[in-house]
């Protein structure tokens, strides 16, 4: 399973594809701010807000990761 995923990533990356890889870092402020504000608008206590923000941030990253994998797989059939 791991070797298949490694192969997918290596093939998907390719020589030219890695040139824009650093653009992934633009996701970090987006996820941080979104999860923080979402948590803050649902609770009043900072402990609960922090826990909620971590949960939402994790879900956002997982969801984005899933979309990335699906897009990567689809790119092989393009």
């Amino acid at each position, binding site marked *: 399973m791991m070797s298949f995923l490694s192969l997918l990533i290596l093939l998907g990356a390719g020589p030219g594809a890695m040139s824009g890889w650093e653009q992934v870092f633009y996701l970090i402020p987006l996820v941080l701010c979104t999860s923080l504000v979402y948590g803050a608008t649902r609770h009043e206590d900072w402990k*609960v807000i922090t826990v909620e923000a971590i949960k939402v941030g994790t879900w956002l990253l997982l969801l984005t990761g899933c979309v990335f994998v699906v897009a990567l797989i689809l790119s092989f059939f393009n």
Partner: protein
Amino acid sequence: MATDGELEFTLDLKNRGVAALLGWLVPGVGHLYQGRTSKGIAIFLSVSLLFIFGLQLSGGKAVYCSFRSPDVRWQFIGQAFVGSAAIPAVVQNRVVRGQEADPASMIKPLMGGKFAPPIAGERRQWHADYHAYFQMGTLYTFVAGLLNMFAIFDAYCGPAVLYQELADDEEDDGEGDEEE
């Protein structure tokens, strides 16, 4: 008295309309008005950071108001939840469209063209100049606007889950009383 987790506190939303209006004009200021200082600062920093960063990425071009075909800027619906940017964008739209309607006048937007809609194919040039960063800036400002919508709602109605929990608790108490 309201509860959130194990802590108890009182939540005075003051004048909700004023708080929502202030929160729309400048993100987080509605919360500061209500005395929810730490939350106000967090919202101000988060939303402003995203919005300014988005503007910076797109060279200040990502936020403009235009609903005339072919340039229907639907993203402005989200961006408009940050009022301090939405007001100048709407003013610029009225100024530029007014000047376009008069063939004799030269199109000259206010404030050096900040928040002004693109004039005659200018948008293609923006895409050529900023590539993906124009889209990225649009996304950042759009998300910032939507987050501020949540913040405005929070300033007007209080935190969503807190009141839902209280309502559920009251329902449970009511059922308990009936059983007794």
